């Protein structure tokens, strides 16, 4: 094995260099390949563009338009888009629909972020504990998640809203709880597989504490699938919040929530359908972009899934 290197010709060295350079390029920056996949991935690209546009509107819009979402102008009600300086028109109180759309997007994003953070943190902890510690801890985790998993989300929210009153908090809790179950299930599944891997066995054999193994060895490995999954549940959270606000359980007036805006506009479909169409498109766009990003992330982070999905044969 050693003899060959001495007799390396210049040809061999040149080729070695080429291979090395190629490998270096691949190795040095694993993100570069992902980035390349990212830009090449049509789903991710479209989703991101749409997402950036919508989120940008939500974040930056109010900087230019002001954030007076409650300001009424009762002489300018039900205006269609592009009228009297209102880009998207006005609602039944003469409030600027564009401003309300921007703030509504913010509310949606904040609620979705809160829900997803709760689901992600609690779900990862529960999933890792259940999957790694096994035994009765696992049984409890599994029972709880199976229990919550099958529950109709809207029903949970209706019941919680009964207990906590209307507002965004019960919505966040209800959707958060159901989403915790989803994340827990996946993380637990990953950890059960990881638990038998050599590096975990080795760490355990050398007396590393359970907590440390989970923190140092398991967490980094379950992070990617959990994040990919979480991106889907952002979409679920957005739709759920909108739905609950629609039936009056979410944001309280005059704070605009996209679902509540659709509900407010429903009486005026004949008069000025934009009042519910604008927020409706807002929700659909937001959800569409998030799920496209989710699909794209899955392709990038979990190529095996992609191959299955796209029909490339394994092996």
């Amino acid at each position, binding site marked *: 094995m050693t003899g060959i290197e001495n007799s390396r010709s210049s040809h061999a060295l040149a080729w070695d260099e080429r291979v090395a350079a190629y490998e270096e390029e691949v190795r040095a920056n694993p993100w570069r390949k992902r980035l390349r996949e990212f830009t090449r991935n049509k789903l991710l690209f479209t989703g991101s563009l749409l997402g950036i546009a919508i989120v940008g509107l939500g974040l930056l819009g109010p900087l230019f338009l002001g954030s007076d979402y409650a300001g009424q102008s009762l002489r300018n009600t039900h205006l269609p888009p592009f009228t009297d300086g209102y880009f998207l028109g006005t609602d039944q109180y003469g409030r600027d629909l564009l401003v309300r759309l921007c703030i509504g997007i913010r509310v949606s994003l904040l609620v979705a972020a809160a829900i997803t953070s709760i689901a992600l943190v609690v779900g990862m902890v529960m999933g890792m504990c259940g999957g790694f510690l096994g035994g009765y801890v696992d049984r409890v985790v599994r029972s709880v998640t199976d*229990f919550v998993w*099958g529950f109709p989300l809207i029903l949970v929210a209706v*019941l919680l809203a009964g207990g906590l009153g209307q507002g965004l908090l019960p919505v966040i809790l209800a959707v958060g709880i159901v989403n915790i179950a989803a994340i827990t299930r996946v993380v637990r599944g990953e950890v059960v597989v990881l638990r038998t891997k050599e590096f975990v066995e080795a760490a355990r054999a050398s007396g590393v504490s359970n907590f440390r193994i989970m923190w140092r060895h398991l967490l980094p490995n379950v992070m990617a699938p959990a994040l990919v999954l979480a991106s889907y549940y952002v979409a679920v959270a957005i739709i759920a919040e909108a*739905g609950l606000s629609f039936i009056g359980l979410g944001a309280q007036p005059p704070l605009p929530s996209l679902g509540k805006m659709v509900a407010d506009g429903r009486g005026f479909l004949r008069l000025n359908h934009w009042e519910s169409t604008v927020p409706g498109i807002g929700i*659909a766009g937001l959800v569409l972009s998030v799920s496209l990003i989710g699909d794209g992330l899955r392709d990038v982070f979990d190529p095996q899934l992609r191959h299955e999905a796209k029909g490339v044969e394994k092996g």
Partner: protein
Amino acid sequence: MKHTASRLVYTVIVLFVSSVAVFYAIRLSGGDATAAALPGSATEEFREEFRDRLGLNEPIYQQYFTYMGRILSGDPGNSLTNNKALTTMLSEHGRNSLILGGTAFGLVFLVGVPLGIVASLRRNSWADQGIMSMSTVAMAVPNFWLALLAVWLFASRLGWLPSAGCCGPKHLILPAVVLAFEGIALTVRMTRSSMIESQNSDYVRTLRAGGLSEWRITCKHVLRNALIPIISLAGLRIGQIVGYALIVETIFGWPGLGQVLVNAVLRRDYPVAQFFSLVLVALVVVGNWVADTGYTIANPRLRKSS
């Protein structure tokens, strides 16, 4: 069979826990039960007496056991607002809900599965791309907005279908489609990926090597294998339909369990709210169990163990 039996025990436990959760959630919610049952003119003494009569002044755990005792004895009580027996209400509204939910459930699979199959067979064709794009968009459209658009288009503009009401076939179309919409989109995607996974599996290659026709392989082997995971998720679809029914029944004025439940929660009609939540939860839990059992039957690997 052992698997099925242990799932049954688990289902019973889940039902118990749910009943406690539902009971507490509704009892702890604000609002006075007497507001639903008594006139605004009723005196405070009379209200207090009424609460006593309903047992609302007892410790809550005791109320729970009394309540569950009544349910298990087959007499869950009466509504506070109109004194109808809950069992009568269940049979009336439950029938409506079954019609709507059953139709939606049927649509989810009768439309979703064939579309998914078409997409998987014509992979990457325009038909596939069309179906998949539509399902992606369909999943993003919130069903309450869809309901409004559907009413606006088919009831207001075109006048083809009634905008709300019960219970003829024409009244059923809009709410059932709206209720099924997201489920259809999800089922299309799942069927497609499940079909593709099955098509690319080793056993299909074996069957091809055995000289079976593509048609036969697809219809018999690929489909059968692909449908197994879809059956297992039927339980989730039930939960989804039950949940969305709360919104869709309200929008379309369909007098089902969901609409009654929402109304009861709003007016603090405890007996109705508790009983119907419990019924819906039980429906979901039992539905999951049935789907799970179906999965077991469809999948020989779980059916018998060697």
